[in-house]
């Protein structure tokens, strides 16, 4: 696939996929968020759903009819391609978010296993995990669950052979080369290294998801005492 020219392919009657590549890659993913920002500006009625290397466009087919009342794929394709050339300040739409994390102990039961696998001390794992800048590549699996790109490759660790039936809300975890945060108590197979007291998804909030696709994220280590104090404010519970 030529990365300069994304492919546009129908998925369903009301959904097309714009593909920029087929790899989990920060540069390809940045193009996805860039395209999403342009399309949202130019075609606000088209819903954009970013993934690692592709963007889903969900539209109302009846809004794209030709004079004879038939769905006009050519007109939609031209509108999408023209929107991709739209001038928009993309960096301004991404937020910088710092996530406080209580690493290890009861909050990160797999931290020692991750350290052993990487041949590092737990202190080094925390130092490397907090040193990196991450990008929210996409949100999926559960409402508000961010798939973050940017993990130090030394920390990559396979998923657990036996997934847990219940991972506590706020758990910060590593699965392969990805790191992510469980927004609510869920079953999960990633390795748990810590826990944040922040609420990642709250339907009652004006902005229900703390993170948006494309946001830049850093982690900051906090103590168990700080976690308990912050969790009392955010109302995070098991």
């Amino acid at each position, binding site marked *: 696939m030529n990365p300069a020219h994304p492919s546009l392919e129908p998925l*369903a009657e009301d959904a097309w996929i714009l593909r920029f590549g087929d790899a989990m890659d920060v540069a390809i993913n940045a193009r996805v968020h860039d395209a999403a920002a342009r399309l949202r500006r130019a075609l606000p009625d088209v819903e954009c759903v970013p993934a690692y290397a592709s963007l889903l466009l969900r539209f109302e087919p009846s809004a794209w009819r030709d004079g004879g009342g038939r769905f006009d794929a050519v007109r939609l394709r031209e509108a999408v391609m023209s929107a991709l050339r739209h001038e928009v300040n993309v960096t301004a739409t991404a937020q910088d978010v710092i996530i406080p994390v209580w690493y290890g102990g009861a909050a990160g039961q797999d931290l020692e296993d991750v350290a052993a696998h990487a041949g590092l001390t737990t202190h080094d794992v925390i130092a490397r995990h907090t040193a990196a800048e991450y990008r929210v590549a996409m949100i999926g699996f559960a409402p508000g*669950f961010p798939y973050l790109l940017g993990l130090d490759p030394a920390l990559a660790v396979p998923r657990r052979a036996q997934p847990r039936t219940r991972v506590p809300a706020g758990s910060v975890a590593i699965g392969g080369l990805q790191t992510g945060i469980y927004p*609510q108590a869920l079953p999960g197979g990633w390795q748990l290294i810590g826990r944040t007291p922040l609420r990642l998804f709250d339907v009652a909030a004006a902005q229900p998801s703390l993170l948006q696709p494309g946001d830049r994220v850093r982690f900051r280590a906090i103590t168990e005492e700080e976690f308990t104090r912050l969790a009392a404010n955010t109302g995070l519970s098991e």
Partner: protein
Amino acid sequence: MSIEVIKPGLLSSLQDAGRHGHASLGLGRGGAMDLPAWRLANALVGNVHHEAALEITLAGPTLRFRCDAVIALTGAIVDARADGEPLPPWTACFLPAGTVLRMGGMRHGCRSYLAVRGGFDVAPVLGSRSTDLHARVGPLEGRGLQAGDELPMATTDAAPWIRSRTLHALRWGLDPQPWLDDAKAPLALLRGHHHEAMDEASQRALFSQRFMLSKDSNRTGARLDGSPLALRQPLELISEATVPGTVQLPPSGQPIALLAEAPVTGGYPRIGQVAAVDLPRLAQRRPGDTVSFREVTFDEAMDRLDAREEALQRLLRRIAQRLESA
């Protein structure tokens, strides 16, 4: 103004047209599995604002109406008795306060819709009164009915076409036949992005095999049991967005057709896409029913969807006229 849940049935949940616009935050649309049946149930009781209705699965609930209500049941024909009196399907009925509505099984089909005039008065969550069972978002904290629940009903004007305050059904209803699935005809399927990544026998088998709907199917996906389909070689894929109708092939070789509560992303090969016009029919297949596919083009899928929508709009207009002139 409420309904008391005496028995919840197998799975009953409030549903509307779904929660639009939040897929990029990991929250899919969800909503009624058989959207035409849901819209017609609302139309029959004179609702025009896309009110939530109760989606009933396979075995219905028992409900006590604490106030007068006008109801209609559409979708799969369910055995429904109001204080012992059988209610006609696809017909508006008046239930006086105190009526106990007992719903049993469905001989054919899997999902019925119970609409009440005025709708259910539950708070919308992110713009919808749909229950997302998977994400646990929506009415009743995102779960199905339980015994003891109270379902609040919105206050509404008395329907002028209700002439008596005793238990009765209107003398006219809809013919359900054009909207029912025969559980046999093949469903229209578009070729998926990874169709040709399957070996040739599997490419043919997708369109010739009779699959059986697994009992593990739910609002998230229809699991299709059959001779396993296989890829030419293993594929390392990264996740991308999925929508209802996307047919994925997990390593087991048994395809999964995603339904209303489709996850917003998926990482399995996509071998097909069920045409939108046939999603309500797939939603009406029961565990153990046969599912087979025939290939269609996007143009055919779109034409059939347009034709179905036109027929639905005509019927909605006729119902509205009939209620106005009554």
